[in-house]
């Protein structure tokens, strides 16, 4: 019995042990499970991480290679660009040098040529001097001419005076006014009178007409001879002088027979022949026209033919041109001068004019 109780107590103890161990087991199981999970997760983690690391490394390699490639391409491009820029800068520099020289040359020669301007101003000064001298000479010459002309006029006047006063010339018996015995020597008028002819009345008329009419200027405000007054008719049984003169100097009125010349007929024939020669176009009047196309002889125009050479008339020029005179001139502007025939038609200033 005690064994039974002991065994029952042992069973109870075993049950309690079992339950305790079960509980402990269960706890340990949980714990161990947890630990196992933990270990597994760590392992999975490291495995995965190493795998990822491996993947990363590979991706990095790829990316590295790619980036390197891209960068090298870009670098090559950049090098090309830099090379190009370097070349362009060099060319620009060289072009600037060329342009510098060219612009300097061009401006100095064509835009503002200092030496040409200096030469021009020097030349202008010289030309001015020349012109001033030439004008001085010209004015001198003109002054001399005028003085000469004045002197001649004076001389002529003196001569005229002497001619007019010729009657005052001294004779052998009576000394004249200009040859007074109280003078040492005769007056120049005396000497002049001796050398000229006396002035007659008919010469005075000539003298009057020799005056230049254009020098008179205004022909009205100065005293001009008024228009002639008709003189009185002569008293008596005289006919009208105009009729008498007409009768006295009547022109000859020959009859037709008298007026024609003796060779009139021949002259008329000549006339006709000349007219025919001018007017006729066909000189060989009866040329056979059945073979006219074969008999055509080329006739040279008389205007372009001469015995020695072919003239330029009609081919080179139509009007003679003098090249020397025409040099540097612009061609003629042909301005048509208006013809005033019908301008005044229907346009008068006043009604009075319309009668015309």
């Amino acid at each position, binding site marked *: 019995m005690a064994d039974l109780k002991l065994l029952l107590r042992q069973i109870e103890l075993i049950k309690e042990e079992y339950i305790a161990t079960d509980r402990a087991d269960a706890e340990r199981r949980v714990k161990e499970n947890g630990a196992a999970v933990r270990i597994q997760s760590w392992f999975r983690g490291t495995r995965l991480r190493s795998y990822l690391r491996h993947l990363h490394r590979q991706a990095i390699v790829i990316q590295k290679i790619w980036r390197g490639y891209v960068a090298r391409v870009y670098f090559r491009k950049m090098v090309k660009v830099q090379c190009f820029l370097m070349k362009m800068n060099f060319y620009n520099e060289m072009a600037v040098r060329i342009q510098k020289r060219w612009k300097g040359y061009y401006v100095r020669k064509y835009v503002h040529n200092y030496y040409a301007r200096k030469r021009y101003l020097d030349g202008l000064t010289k030309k001015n001097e020349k012109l001033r001298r030439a004008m001085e000479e010209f004015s001198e010459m003109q002054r001399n001419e005028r003085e000469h002309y004045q002197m001649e006029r004076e001389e002529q006047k003196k001569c005229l005076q002497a001619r007019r006063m010729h009657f005052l010339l001294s004779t052998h018996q009576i000394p004249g006014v200009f040859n007074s015995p109280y003078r040492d020597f005769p007056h120049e008028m005396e000497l002049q009178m001796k050398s000229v002819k006396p002035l007659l009345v008919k010469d005075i008329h000539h003298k009057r007409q020799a005056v230049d009419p254009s020098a008179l200027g205004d022909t009205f405000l100065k005293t001009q001879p008024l228009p002639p007054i008709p003189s009185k008719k002569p008293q008596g049984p005289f006919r009208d002088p105009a009729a008498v003169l007409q009768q006295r100097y009547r022109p000859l009125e020959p009859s037709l027979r008298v007026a024609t010349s003796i060779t009139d007929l021949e002259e008329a024939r000549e006339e006709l022949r000349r007219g025919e020669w001018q007017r006729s176009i066909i000189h060989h009047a009866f040329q056979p026209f059945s073979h006219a196309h074969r008999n055509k002889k080329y006739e040279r125009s008389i205007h372009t033919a001469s015995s020695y050479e072919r003239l330029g008339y009609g081919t080179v020029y139509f009007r003679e041109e003098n090249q020397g005179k025409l040099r540097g001139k612009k061609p003629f502007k042909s301005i048509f001068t208006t013809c*005033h025939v019908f*301008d005044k038609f229907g346009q008068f200033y006043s009604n009075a*004019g319309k009668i015309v």
Partner: protein
Amino acid sequence: MSQRQVLQVFEQYQKARTQFVQTIAELATRPQNIETLQNAGVLSLLRPLLLDVVPTIQQTAALALGRLANHNDDLAEAVVKGDVLPQLVYSLAEQNRFYKKAAAFVLRAVARHSPRQAQAVVDCGALDALVACLEEFDPGVKEAAAWALGNIARHNGELSQAVVDAGAVPLLVLCIQEPELALKRIAASTLSDISKHSPELAQTAVDAGAIAHLAQMILNPDTKLKRQVFSALGQISKHSVDLAEMVVEAEVFPAALACLKDPDEYVRKNVTTLIREVAKHTPELSQLIVNAGGVAAVIDTIGDSQGNVRLPGIMMLGYVAAHSESLAMAVIVSKGVHQLTICLVEETEDHIKAATAWALGQIGRHSPEHARAVAAANVLPRLLRLYVDTESSEDLRVKAKKALKSILQKCTYLPALEPLLHEAPSDILKHVVGQFSKVLPHDSKARRLFVTSGGLKKVQEIKAEPGSLLQENINSINSCYPEEIVRYYSPGYSEILLERVEAYQPT
């Protein structure tokens, strides 16, 4: 009464009429008789005599009428009012050459005085009759007709246009070619009067071929003819570039310069007018004249003449210099500035002085070289005096000021600017100070001269508004000099020094 006695009465009457008309015609030549004649009512007595049977009485009456109308405007108006003109115009077409001359003389005398009388003459239909007279053979008739047309066309453009429309111009050009000198003179004068009003009228004259004939007459020895020819060419060329070029193409130029030495001053004046009118249009035409030596010739002419005769020459120099700076330099090289300064000093008339000031301004305004040449001739103080003088006319002051400004803006010749610093009013002073402020920073010798001549002192004394351009220029001048010097010359420095002396405590 027998027939003879009856006829004798008529003869006596005719003799009396003839004597009356001849005496009146002779009396009318003297100006002192005119008044008496007018009061005695001579016009109403002469009018019926114009319709007299005897031709010589008609002619003499017309002559007397013309001489009367020539004297003054009232008589001419009385002639117009007396309805004489239509009769004269009608008989111009009919009668003999003496009558034509007398009638044309009356028309010219009437048309001379004013546009109204000329219009009255035109309204009577005189133009056609006068143009018909121009086709006559007698040169006296042509001369009288041309003179009448010239007097009509002189007044204004419409009357000239009427004359041209009547077809006068080709006939006038034919008249110029005639051998008689008086006719040539009158025809040239009429062409000049016609062309002066407008370009179209000048073009009409040119189309009729006037220029070639006028150019041929340039070297004719007759003085009055030369006057008219040059006047005509000048009037033609003044209107446009094309007309001026046509005048130049007629090879007028080197020949016209010879006439600048003519003893008659009006010939010289007209030649210089022609040269001026040609030069003013384009630089090329001016260049042509300069290359022919025209500038030197004109300058000599200015030297030889006095008064109004100089004016076209002065203006020509101004126009030439205005076109370009090389032409202005050509004027300077030909000693133009010297001559213009002499003009500026000698002349008394304001308009001539104004023209001279303008010409000098045109010469000096192009570049510092030009301004230096002008300033070295001592022109600037004179211009300043003209500007400041209260007796100068408005036009003269304006032109002097403009010239002064334009020269000053380019002038870097400091010795000439110094006197201006002391005398100039404020509006000129700012330009002078501006020029100093441009030159002084770069030139040390000039700075020294500026101080020693008292210019710096003067500059300090100028009162200017702060912030204005003048103040900035003064500041830039002051900045060229050390501080002490500027303070030394500033006004009132001696007082400051004396105050410092008073305040000083000797230790």
